[in-house]
Protein backbone atom coordinates (compact mmCIF):
# COMPACT_ATOMS: atom_id res chain seq x y z
CA UNK A 1 0.00 0.00 0.00
CA UNK A 2 2.67 2.53 1.01
CA UNK A 3 4.66 1.68 -2.09
CA UNK A 4 1.71 2.56 -4.25
CA UNK A 5 1.03 5.85 -2.54
CA UNK A 6 4.71 6.80 -2.55
CA UNK A 7 4.79 6.11 -6.28
CA UNK A 8 1.77 8.33 -6.89
CA UNK A 9 3.28 11.17 -4.88
CA UNK A 10 6.52 10.80 -6.79
CA UNK A 11 4.59 10.99 -10.06
CA UNK A 12 2.54 13.96 -8.94
CA UNK A 13 5.69 15.84 -7.92
CA UNK A 14 6.64 15.79 -11.62
CA UNK A 15 3.22 17.20 -12.54
CA UNK A 16 3.66 19.98 -9.98
CA UNK A 17 7.19 20.80 -11.10
CA UNK A 18 6.10 20.99 -14.70
CA UNK A 19 3.12 23.13 -13.67
CA UNK A 20 5.16 25.63 -11.65
CA UNK A 21 8.01 25.95 -14.15
CA UNK A 22 5.57 26.40 -17.02
CA UNK A 23 3.65 29.08 -15.16
CA UNK A 24 6.71 31.00 -13.99
CA UNK A 25 8.19 31.14 -17.48
CA UNK A 26 5.11 31.41 -19.69
CA UNK A 27 3.59 34.38 -17.83
CA UNK A 28 6.44 36.78 -18.74
CA UNK A 29 7.10 35.15 -22.12
CA UNK A 30 3.42 35.62 -22.95
CA UNK A 31 3.77 39.37 -22.35
CA UNK A 32 6.71 39.53 -24.77
CA UNK A 33 4.62 37.70 -27.38
CA UNK A 34 1.76 40.15 -26.75
CA UNK A 35 3.97 43.14 -27.46
CA UNK A 36 5.07 41.41 -30.67
CA UNK A 37 1.54 40.68 -31.78
CA UNK A 38 0.51 44.29 -31.03
CA UNK A 39 3.60 45.82 -32.64
CA UNK A 40 3.15 48.68 -35.08
CA UNK A 41 5.96 47.13 -37.17
CA UNK A 42 3.90 45.02 -39.55
CA UNK A 43 6.36 42.20 -40.44
CA UNK A 44 7.00 41.50 -36.75
CA UNK A 45 3.30 41.51 -35.94
CA UNK A 46 2.62 39.19 -38.85
CA UNK A 47 5.42 36.82 -37.85
CA UNK A 48 4.34 36.66 -34.19
CA UNK A 49 0.68 36.15 -35.05
CA UNK A 50 1.57 33.32 -37.44
CA UNK A 51 3.61 31.72 -34.69
CA UNK A 52 0.69 31.99 -32.25
CA UNK A 53 -1.64 30.53 -34.87
CA UNK A 54 0.66 27.50 -35.34
CA UNK A 55 1.09 26.90 -31.62
CA UNK A 56 -2.59 27.24 -30.84
CA UNK A 57 -3.65 25.40 -33.99
CA UNK A 58 -1.70 22.18 -33.44
CA UNK A 59 -1.96 19.60 -30.65
CA UNK A 60 0.25 20.05 -27.59
CA UNK A 61 0.97 16.32 -27.88
CA UNK A 62 2.50 16.87 -31.31
CA UNK A 63 4.52 19.82 -29.99
CA UNK A 64 5.93 17.59 -27.24
CA UNK A 65 7.17 15.08 -29.82
CA UNK A 66 8.56 17.80 -32.06
CA UNK A 67 10.56 19.37 -29.23
CA UNK A 68 11.85 15.99 -28.07
CA UNK A 69 12.87 14.57 -31.45
CA UNK A 70 13.68 17.37 -33.85
CA UNK A 71 16.97 18.50 -32.26
CA UNK A 72 18.34 14.97 -32.64
CA UNK A 73 16.81 14.02 -35.97
CA UNK A 74 17.25 17.37 -37.72
CA UNK A 75 20.46 18.71 -36.19
CA UNK A 76 22.17 15.65 -34.74
CA UNK A 77 22.11 17.00 -31.16
CA UNK A 78 19.62 14.87 -29.26
CA UNK A 79 17.58 16.45 -26.48
CA UNK A 80 19.41 15.52 -23.27
CA UNK A 81 16.48 15.46 -20.89
CA UNK A 82 12.85 14.57 -21.47
CA UNK A 83 11.82 16.97 -18.74
CA UNK A 84 13.58 19.85 -20.53
CA UNK A 85 11.73 18.97 -23.71
CA UNK A 86 8.43 18.91 -21.83
CA UNK A 87 9.12 22.26 -20.17
CA UNK A 88 10.02 23.92 -23.49
CA UNK A 89 6.90 22.60 -25.19
CA UNK A 90 4.62 23.58 -22.31
CA UNK A 91 6.13 27.05 -21.83
CA UNK A 92 5.87 27.94 -25.53
CA UNK A 93 2.36 26.52 -25.81
CA UNK A 94 1.04 28.31 -22.73
CA UNK A 95 2.83 31.56 -23.52
CA UNK A 96 0.99 31.63 -26.86
CA UNK A 97 -2.40 31.18 -25.15
CA UNK A 98 -1.60 33.69 -22.40
CA UNK A 99 -0.42 36.26 -24.94
CA UNK A 100 -3.88 36.27 -26.49
CA UNK A 101 -5.48 36.75 -23.07
CA UNK A 102 -3.14 39.66 -22.38
CA UNK A 103 -3.86 41.17 -25.78
CA UNK A 104 -7.60 40.96 -25.18
CA UNK A 105 -7.11 42.58 -21.77
CA UNK A 106 -4.96 45.42 -23.05
CA UNK A 107 -7.22 46.11 -26.03
CA UNK A 108 -10.31 46.19 -23.81
CA UNK A 109 -9.06 49.23 -21.88
CA UNK A 110 -10.81 52.30 -23.32
CA UNK A 111 -8.69 54.75 -25.30
CA UNK A 112 -9.91 57.47 -22.95
CA UNK A 113 -7.74 56.09 -20.14
CA UNK A 114 -4.58 56.58 -22.23
CA UNK A 115 -5.73 60.02 -23.34
CA UNK A 116 -6.60 61.13 -19.81
CA UNK A 117 -3.10 60.14 -18.69
CA UNK A 118 -1.47 61.83 -21.68
CA UNK A 119 -3.22 65.19 -21.23
CA UNK A 120 -2.13 65.15 -17.58
CA UNK A 121 1.47 65.12 -18.76
CA UNK A 122 2.24 61.48 -18.00
CA UNK A 123 4.81 59.63 -20.09
CA UNK A 124 3.73 56.57 -22.05
CA UNK A 125 5.33 54.22 -19.55
CA UNK A 126 3.77 56.06 -16.61
CA UNK A 127 0.37 55.68 -18.27
CA UNK A 128 0.96 51.96 -18.81
CA UNK A 129 2.30 51.13 -15.36
CA UNK A 130 0.30 53.57 -13.21
CA UNK A 131 -3.03 53.55 -15.04
CA UNK A 132 -3.46 50.67 -17.48
CA UNK A 133 -1.69 47.65 -15.99
CA UNK A 134 -3.81 47.07 -12.89
CA UNK A 135 -6.99 47.40 -14.94
CA UNK A 136 -5.65 44.78 -17.34
CA UNK A 137 -4.72 42.47 -14.46
CA UNK A 138 -8.21 42.75 -13.03
CA UNK A 139 -9.77 41.91 -16.38
CA UNK A 140 -7.58 38.91 -17.12
CA UNK A 141 -7.74 37.15 -13.76
CA UNK A 142 -10.84 35.07 -14.67
CA UNK A 143 -9.58 33.84 -18.08
CA UNK A 144 -6.09 33.29 -16.60
CA UNK A 145 -7.63 31.17 -13.85
CA UNK A 146 -9.18 29.00 -16.52
CA UNK A 147 -5.85 28.49 -18.29
CA UNK A 148 -4.02 27.79 -15.05
CA UNK A 149 -6.50 25.09 -14.05
CA UNK A 150 -6.33 23.57 -17.52
CA UNK A 151 -2.55 23.52 -17.23
CA UNK A 152 -2.61 21.35 -14.09
CA UNK A 153 -4.44 18.65 -16.04
CA UNK A 154 -2.44 19.14 -19.24
CA UNK A 155 0.75 18.21 -17.37
CA UNK A 156 -0.46 14.59 -17.57
CA UNK A 157 0.22 14.78 -21.31
CA UNK A 158 3.96 14.73 -20.61
CA UNK A 159 3.73 10.94 -20.32
CA UNK A 160 3.64 10.71 -24.14
CA UNK A 161 7.36 11.55 -24.16
CA UNK A 162 8.07 9.15 -21.34
CA UNK A 163 7.79 11.33 -18.26
CA UNK A 164 6.55 9.22 -15.36
CA UNK A 165 3.89 11.59 -14.17
CA UNK A 166 1.12 10.48 -11.83
CA UNK A 167 -1.29 8.83 -14.28
CA UNK A 168 1.51 6.84 -15.90
CA UNK A 169 2.58 5.68 -12.42
CA UNK A 170 -0.96 4.64 -11.55
CA UNK A 171 -1.53 2.84 -14.82
CA UNK A 172 1.40 0.52 -14.13
CA UNK A 173 -0.56 -0.92 -11.21
CA UNK A 174 -3.45 -2.00 -13.42
CA UNK A 175 -1.19 -4.78 -14.65
CA UNK A 176 -1.25 -6.07 -11.08
CA UNK A 177 -5.05 -5.96 -11.17
CA UNK A 178 -5.38 -2.74 -9.17
CA UNK A 179 -7.77 0.02 -10.26
CA UNK A 180 -7.83 2.24 -7.13
CA UNK A 181 -4.46 3.94 -7.76
CA UNK A 182 -5.85 5.14 -11.08
CA UNK A 183 -9.02 6.46 -9.42
CA UNK A 184 -7.06 8.18 -6.71
CA UNK A 185 -4.98 10.22 -9.20
CA UNK A 186 -8.20 12.15 -9.75
CA UNK A 187 -8.15 13.09 -6.07
CA UNK A 188 -4.67 14.54 -6.40
CA UNK A 189 -5.85 16.83 -9.21
CA UNK A 190 -9.07 17.71 -7.39
CA UNK A 191 -7.31 18.74 -4.20
CA UNK A 192 -4.63 20.69 -6.06
CA UNK A 193 -7.18 22.52 -8.19
CA UNK A 194 -9.33 23.14 -5.13
CA UNK A 195 -6.47 25.01 -3.49
CA UNK A 196 -5.72 26.87 -6.75
CA UNK A 197 -9.37 27.91 -7.05
CA UNK A 198 -9.27 29.33 -3.54
CA UNK A 199 -6.08 31.29 -4.23
CA UNK A 200 -7.35 32.66 -7.54
CA UNK A 201 -10.70 33.53 -5.98
CA UNK A 202 -8.87 35.42 -3.24
CA UNK A 203 -6.91 37.35 -5.89
CA UNK A 204 -10.13 38.21 -7.69
CA UNK A 205 -11.67 39.51 -4.46
CA UNK A 206 -8.52 41.53 -3.71
CA UNK A 207 -9.16 43.45 -6.94
CA UNK A 208 -12.86 43.92 -6.19
CA UNK A 209 -12.38 47.37 -4.68
CA UNK A 210 -12.68 49.01 -8.09
CA UNK A 211 -14.71 48.43 -11.23
CA UNK A 212 -13.50 48.59 -14.82
Amino acid at each position, binding site marked *: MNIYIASLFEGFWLNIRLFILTLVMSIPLGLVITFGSMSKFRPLRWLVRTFVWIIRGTPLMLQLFVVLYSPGLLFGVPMKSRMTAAIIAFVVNYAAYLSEIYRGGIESIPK*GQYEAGA*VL*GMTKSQVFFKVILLQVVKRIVPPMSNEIITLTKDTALARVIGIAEIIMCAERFTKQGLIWPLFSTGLFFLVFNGVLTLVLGWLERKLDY*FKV
Partner: protein
Amino acid sequence: MPILEVKNISKRFGDTEVIKDISFSLEKGETLSVIGSSGSGKTTLLRCLNFLETPDAGTITVNGEVIFDAADPMSRSEKGIREKRLHFGLVFQSFNLFPQYTALQNVTLAGMLLAKERPDYKERKSQIHEEIISNAKTILDSVGLSSKLDNYPHQLSGGQQQRVAIARALALNPDILCFDEPTSALDPELTGEVLRVIRELAERKTTMIIVTHEMSFARQVSDNVLFMDEGFVVEYGPPEQVIGNPQEDRTKQFLERYFENGNN
Protein backbone atom coordinates in the same frame (compact mmCIF):
# COMPACT_ATOMS: atom_id res chain seq x y z
CA MET B 1 -1.27 89.86 -25.79
CA PRO B 2 -3.80 87.03 -26.07
CA ILE B 3 -3.08 83.94 -23.96
CA LEU B 4 -3.89 81.67 -26.90
CA GLU B 5 -3.64 82.27 -30.61
CA VAL B 6 -4.72 79.59 -33.04
CA LYS B 7 -3.81 80.27 -36.66
CA ASN B 8 -4.95 78.43 -39.78
CA ILE B 9 -5.30 75.02 -38.13
CA SER B 10 -6.42 72.19 -40.42
CA LYS B 11 -6.80 68.50 -39.79
CA ARG B 12 -7.79 65.67 -42.09
CA PHE B 13 -8.53 62.02 -41.38
CA GLY B 14 -7.90 60.14 -44.62
CA ASP B 15 -9.91 61.94 -47.27
CA THR B 16 -12.08 63.92 -44.88
CA GLU B 17 -10.95 67.34 -43.83
CA VAL B 18 -12.44 67.63 -40.38
CA ILE B 19 -11.34 71.14 -39.50
CA LYS B 20 -10.43 73.71 -42.10
CA ASP B 21 -8.26 76.76 -41.62
CA ILE B 22 -9.45 77.61 -38.11
CA SER B 23 -8.16 80.79 -36.50
CA PHE B 24 -9.19 82.46 -33.27
CA SER B 25 -7.64 83.95 -30.18
CA LEU B 26 -8.43 83.94 -26.50
CA GLU B 27 -7.67 86.53 -23.81
CA LYS B 28 -6.63 85.59 -20.30
CA GLY B 29 -9.70 85.04 -18.13
CA GLU B 30 -11.97 84.66 -21.14
CA THR B 31 -14.57 81.92 -21.54
CA LEU B 32 -15.11 80.79 -25.11
CA SER B 33 -17.91 78.40 -26.05
CA VAL B 34 -17.68 76.35 -29.23
CA ILE B 35 -21.05 75.29 -30.61
CA GLY B 36 -22.18 73.42 -33.70
CA SER B 37 -23.81 70.17 -34.73
CA SER B 38 -22.21 66.75 -34.28
CA GLY B 39 -19.44 66.22 -36.81
CA SER B 40 -18.75 69.91 -37.23
CA GLY B 41 -15.17 69.49 -35.95
CA LYS B 42 -15.57 71.04 -32.48
CA THR B 43 -14.11 68.08 -30.62
CA THR B 44 -11.28 67.65 -33.11
CA LEU B 45 -10.34 71.29 -32.59
CA LEU B 46 -10.12 70.72 -28.84
CA ARG B 47 -8.12 67.52 -29.34
CA CYS B 48 -5.65 69.40 -31.54
CA LEU B 49 -5.08 71.97 -28.77
CA ASN B 50 -4.35 69.12 -26.33
CA PHE B 51 -2.00 67.32 -28.72
CA LEU B 52 -4.28 64.29 -28.92
CA GLU B 53 -4.38 64.98 -32.66
CA THR B 54 -1.62 66.56 -34.70
CA PRO B 55 -2.87 69.31 -37.01
CA ASP B 56 -1.76 69.07 -40.64
CA ALA B 57 -1.32 72.81 -40.91
CA GLY B 58 -1.27 75.89 -38.75
CA THR B 59 0.28 77.20 -35.55
CA ILE B 60 -0.72 77.33 -31.88
CA THR B 61 0.75 80.09 -29.73
CA VAL B 62 0.43 80.30 -25.95
CA ASN B 63 1.58 83.42 -24.07
CA GLY B 64 3.49 84.50 -27.16
CA GLU B 65 5.40 81.21 -27.43
CA VAL B 66 4.75 79.12 -30.52
CA ILE B 67 4.08 75.67 -29.03
CA PHE B 68 3.02 74.04 -32.26
CA ASP B 69 3.93 74.73 -35.85
CA ALA B 70 2.88 72.13 -38.43
CA ALA B 71 5.75 73.27 -40.67
CA ASP B 72 8.34 72.58 -37.95
CA PRO B 73 8.88 68.87 -37.23
CA MET B 74 10.72 69.75 -34.00
CA SER B 75 7.47 70.91 -32.43
CA ARG B 76 6.15 67.35 -32.59
CA SER B 77 8.81 65.59 -30.52
CA GLU B 78 7.42 63.46 -27.70
CA LYS B 79 9.28 65.16 -24.85
CA GLY B 80 8.43 68.64 -26.00
CA ILE B 81 4.77 67.74 -26.41
CA ARG B 82 4.51 66.48 -22.84
CA GLU B 83 5.57 69.84 -21.41
CA LYS B 84 3.50 71.90 -23.85
CA ARG B 85 0.42 69.87 -23.08
CA LEU B 86 0.48 71.19 -19.54
CA HIS B 87 -0.57 74.61 -20.85
CA PHE B 88 -3.93 72.96 -21.42
CA GLY B 89 -6.27 70.93 -19.25
CA LEU B 90 -8.97 68.74 -20.76
CA VAL B 91 -12.22 67.52 -19.27
CA PHE B 92 -13.66 64.66 -21.30
CA GLN B 93 -17.26 63.90 -22.16
CA SER B 94 -16.93 60.45 -20.58
CA PHE B 95 -14.93 61.65 -17.51
CA ASN B 96 -12.16 59.04 -17.97
CA LEU B 97 -11.35 58.88 -14.29
CA PHE B 98 -8.86 56.20 -13.29
CA PRO B 99 -11.06 53.50 -11.73
CA GLN B 100 -8.44 52.01 -9.38
CA TYR B 101 -7.78 55.33 -7.65
CA THR B 102 -9.92 57.26 -5.17
CA ALA B 103 -11.22 60.73 -5.99
CA LEU B 104 -8.28 62.27 -4.13
CA GLN B 105 -5.73 59.97 -5.78
CA ASN B 106 -7.18 60.78 -9.21
CA VAL B 107 -6.50 64.45 -8.53
CA THR B 108 -2.99 63.96 -7.07
CA LEU B 109 -1.58 61.22 -9.34
CA ALA B 110 -0.25 63.34 -12.20
CA GLY B 111 1.12 65.98 -9.85
CA MET B 112 2.98 63.34 -7.84
CA LEU B 113 4.54 61.92 -11.01
CA LEU B 114 5.52 65.34 -12.32
CA ALA B 115 7.04 66.29 -8.97
CA LYS B 116 9.60 63.50 -9.37
CA GLU B 117 11.20 65.55 -12.13
CA ARG B 118 11.76 68.52 -9.82
CA PRO B 119 15.41 69.05 -8.82
CA ASP B 120 14.54 69.40 -5.13
CA TYR B 121 12.32 66.28 -5.08
CA LYS B 122 14.67 64.05 -3.10
CA GLU B 123 15.24 66.49 -0.25
CA ARG B 124 11.69 67.74 0.05
CA LYS B 125 9.79 64.59 -0.92
CA SER B 126 7.32 64.40 1.97
CA GLN B 127 6.79 68.16 1.99
CA ILE B 128 6.03 68.15 -1.75
CA HIS B 129 3.59 65.29 -1.30
CA GLU B 130 1.80 67.15 1.47
CA GLU B 131 1.54 70.26 -0.70
CA ILE B 132 0.07 68.27 -3.59
CA ILE B 133 -2.44 66.55 -1.33
CA SER B 134 -3.55 69.72 0.44
CA ASN B 135 -3.87 71.51 -2.90
CA ALA B 136 -5.99 68.61 -4.23
CA LYS B 137 -8.21 68.71 -1.14
CA THR B 138 -8.76 72.45 -1.56
CA ILE B 139 -9.77 71.97 -5.19
CA LEU B 140 -12.06 69.02 -4.43
CA ASP B 141 -13.65 71.14 -1.73
CA SER B 142 -14.22 73.95 -4.24
CA VAL B 143 -16.16 71.57 -6.50
CA GLY B 144 -18.23 70.40 -3.52
CA LEU B 145 -16.65 66.98 -3.02
CA SER B 146 -14.80 67.32 0.28
CA SER B 147 -16.84 64.41 1.66
CA LYS B 148 -15.96 62.08 -1.24
CA LEU B 149 -12.16 62.14 -1.12
CA ASP B 150 -11.82 58.42 -0.45
CA ASN B 151 -14.56 57.21 -2.78
CA TYR B 152 -13.68 55.27 -5.90
CA PRO B 153 -15.18 56.46 -9.21
CA HIS B 154 -17.74 53.63 -9.34
CA GLN B 155 -19.08 54.82 -5.98
CA LEU B 156 -19.81 58.29 -7.38
CA SER B 157 -22.66 59.59 -9.56
CA GLY B 158 -21.89 60.79 -13.07
CA GLY B 159 -22.07 64.40 -11.95
CA GLN B 160 -19.69 63.76 -9.06
CA GLN B 161 -17.30 61.89 -11.36
CA GLN B 162 -17.24 64.79 -13.77
CA ARG B 163 -16.53 67.20 -10.92
CA VAL B 164 -13.60 65.02 -9.86
CA ALA B 165 -12.39 65.14 -13.47
CA ILE B 166 -12.60 68.95 -13.42
CA ALA B 167 -10.64 68.99 -10.14
CA ARG B 168 -8.06 66.65 -11.66
CA ALA B 169 -7.54 69.03 -14.59
CA LEU B 170 -7.42 72.10 -12.31
CA ALA B 171 -4.82 70.51 -10.03
CA LEU B 172 -2.09 70.97 -12.65
CA ASN B 173 -3.00 74.65 -12.90
CA PRO B 174 -3.32 74.83 -16.70
CA ASP B 175 -3.34 78.17 -18.53
CA ILE B 176 -6.40 77.13 -20.49
CA LEU B 177 -9.00 74.61 -19.35
CA CYS B 178 -10.87 72.82 -22.13
CA PHE B 179 -14.19 71.00 -21.79
CA ASP B 180 -15.37 68.50 -24.40
CA GLU B 181 -19.17 68.34 -24.02
CA PRO B 182 -18.84 67.97 -20.24
CA THR B 183 -22.51 67.24 -19.62
CA SER B 184 -23.44 65.15 -22.68
CA ALA B 185 -22.94 61.83 -20.90
CA LEU B 186 -24.97 62.88 -17.86
CA ASP B 187 -28.60 62.35 -16.91
CA PRO B 188 -30.46 65.67 -17.20
CA GLU B 189 -30.87 66.00 -13.43
CA LEU B 190 -27.09 65.78 -12.98
CA THR B 191 -26.03 68.38 -15.56
CA GLY B 192 -26.87 71.27 -13.20
CA GLU B 193 -24.21 70.47 -10.62
CA VAL B 194 -21.49 70.29 -13.29
CA LEU B 195 -22.62 73.48 -15.04
CA ARG B 196 -22.66 75.25 -11.66
CA VAL B 197 -19.00 74.35 -11.13
CA ILE B 198 -18.05 75.60 -14.61
CA ARG B 199 -20.00 78.81 -14.02
CA GLU B 200 -18.08 79.41 -10.79
CA LEU B 201 -14.82 78.89 -12.69
CA ALA B 202 -15.95 81.49 -15.23
CA GLU B 203 -16.75 83.94 -12.45
CA ARG B 204 -13.26 83.41 -11.02
CA LYS B 205 -11.89 84.31 -14.47
CA THR B 206 -10.51 80.89 -15.38
CA THR B 207 -9.52 80.85 -19.05
CA MET B 208 -11.75 78.23 -20.65
CA ILE B 209 -12.82 76.75 -23.96
CA ILE B 210 -16.10 74.85 -23.69
CA VAL B 211 -17.43 72.64 -26.44
CA THR B 212 -21.09 72.33 -25.57
CA HIS B 213 -24.64 71.68 -26.71
CA GLU B 214 -26.11 73.64 -23.78
CA MET B 215 -27.04 76.87 -25.57
CA SER B 216 -28.57 78.79 -22.71
CA PHE B 217 -25.60 77.91 -20.55
CA ALA B 218 -23.16 79.00 -23.27
CA ARG B 219 -25.07 82.24 -23.61
CA GLN B 220 -24.86 82.96 -19.88
CA VAL B 221 -21.23 82.14 -19.14
CA SER B 222 -19.36 82.89 -22.36
CA ASP B 223 -17.48 86.02 -23.28
CA ASN B 224 -17.40 84.81 -26.87
CA VAL B 225 -19.04 82.06 -28.87
CA LEU B 226 -17.64 80.30 -31.90
CA PHE B 227 -20.06 78.50 -34.21
CA MET B 228 -18.56 75.75 -36.34
CA ASP B 229 -20.09 73.96 -39.30
CA GLU B 230 -18.45 71.35 -41.55
CA GLY B 231 -15.03 72.18 -40.15
CA PHE B 232 -15.21 75.94 -40.70
CA VAL B 233 -15.69 78.79 -38.28
CA VAL B 234 -18.97 80.24 -39.51
CA GLU B 235 -19.57 82.87 -36.88
CA TYR B 236 -17.63 84.28 -33.97
CA GLY B 237 -18.58 86.95 -31.49
CA PRO B 238 -20.22 87.70 -28.16
CA PRO B 239 -23.08 85.35 -27.20
CA GLU B 240 -25.71 88.09 -27.57
CA GLN B 241 -24.80 88.11 -31.26
CA VAL B 242 -23.98 84.49 -32.15
CA ILE B 243 -26.75 82.89 -30.10
CA GLY B 244 -29.09 85.85 -29.54
CA ASN B 245 -28.99 87.49 -32.94
CA PRO B 246 -27.01 85.34 -35.41
CA GLN B 247 -25.87 87.04 -38.63
CA GLU B 248 -25.13 83.95 -40.72
CA ASP B 249 -27.83 81.78 -42.28
CA ARG B 250 -26.19 78.56 -41.15
CA THR B 251 -26.03 79.74 -37.55
CA LYS B 252 -29.72 80.70 -37.71
CA GLN B 253 -30.67 77.28 -39.13
CA PHE B 254 -28.65 75.46 -36.48
CA LEU B 255 -30.18 77.40 -33.62
CA GLU B 256 -33.72 77.14 -35.03
CA ARG B 257 -33.38 73.38 -35.23
CA TYR B 258 -31.90 73.30 -31.75
CA PHE B 259 -34.71 75.25 -30.12
CA GLU B 260 -37.41 73.48 -32.17
CA ASN B 261 -36.31 70.21 -30.64
CA GLY B 262 -37.61 71.36 -27.29
CA ASN B 263 -34.32 72.62 -25.91
CA ASN B 264 -33.87 75.97 -24.32
